[in-house]
């Protein structure tokens, strides 16, 4: 871990946030022509977003992504071994599908923006849609999609 990595993460975060910020600033400045109050709090918040996202991405690159790819590689080796032993070739990758579904479910469930959006949906619907319900449904959808995608990759089905 070096400061070069942190710098890289910061630049990446800035380029990610640039379009969203420019859309908001464009509409605020040119279309609505209204001065933003609480400018200091807004600027502090934006700096928090950039720095937090950069640290988050750095942490992901250091820990979660290597662990995940190592696990996926081991699982794939396992499936390949079972496939060589004569089990039906795409059934032998069962752990890979389960891993894909589990990782998709978990990653979507803790997605920070989804948590905030689910809170907003709860407020907008006056409590009609519970945030946990929304998050679990979205996460289940992502899990199904990832598992199906893994099956497709292994079985070699063309789109």
């Amino acid at each position, binding site marked *: *871990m070096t400061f070069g990595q942190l710098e890289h993460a910061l630049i*990446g975060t800035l*380029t*990610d*946030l*640039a*379009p*969203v910020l*420019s*859309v*908001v600033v464009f*509409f605020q400045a040119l*279309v*609505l022509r*209204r001065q*933003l*109050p*609480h400018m200091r*709090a*807004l600027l*502090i*918040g*934006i*700096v*928090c*977003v*950039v*720095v*937090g*996202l950069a*640290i*988050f991405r*750095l*942490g*992901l*690159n*250091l*820990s*979660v992504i*290597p*662990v995940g790819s*190592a*696990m996926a590689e*081991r*699982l794939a080796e*396992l499936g390949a071994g079972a496939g060589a032993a004569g089990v039906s070739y795409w059934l032998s990758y069962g*752990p890979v599908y*389960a*891993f894909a579904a589990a990782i998709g479910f978990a990653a979507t469930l803790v997605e*920070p*923006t989804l*948590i*905030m959006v689910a*809170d*907003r949906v*709860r*407020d*907008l619907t*006056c*409590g009609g849609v519970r945030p946990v319900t929304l998050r679990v449904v979205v996460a289940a959808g992502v899990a199904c999609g990832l598992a199906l995608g893994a099956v497709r990759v292994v079985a070699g089905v063309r789109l």
Partner: protein
Amino acid sequence: VTGPACRFADAVLARKRVQSRPRPARHRVFPALRRQEPLPDLEQKIVGFAFVLIGLTVFVRGLAMSLFPMGEGLAHSLAERGSVLLLLAFAFALGFGSTFAEPALGAVIATAAEIAAAEALVAPDPNGARTFAAALRLGISGGVGLGVAIGTLRIVLGLARGAAGPGRLWRRAAAGARRACRGSAAWLSTRERRRPPPSTFPSSWRSALAPPRSYGAATPWGRFRPGRPCERDADDRGAARRRALLPLR
């Protein structure tokens, strides 16, 4: 990195391997766990997890301080202006912009362009691969933007409420289109564009766009206009937590 923490983890894992315990059920589900090889660079990974936690905390806090109230006030001002076209343009721009710069999408597109070049699906020079990547990125971003815009239009037309069976959906679509057509004169004429009469709007316009917990409250963007009161807001258990998270409201 081979530090004391790594050696400690090695020792723990080695000790575990010697013991002959009955296998936990999770080892039958994920047989790869059975091997229990020590993770390389354990210290780096622990530091990385700490970074993830810290970064996530700062990020969510900053989001609640800046981008969320900013976008909310902006969307509210746009809704008050009553120009549906402007609202749709905003929705499209937001969806398009945020997808266009998505780093995960960039990685996937780079891989896709590599594969396409290897399979000779595009012109063999690097320019062909670049054109392919740009077209893919533009197409995906445009699709997301269109999706967000269509979703906004759906809310405006009042199709977004209730269970969506085919018959019910069709009835609601017809009613929403009728109401939209009745109100369209108000949206189009320059004199009435600033404040369309509320009766011409679908009823879900207000309920969908009005912020339930700040009725009449002073906000950074002036007073929110009071709308239909929210019944559950009084005994909302998450309200205190959100108030602590959102100092600007």
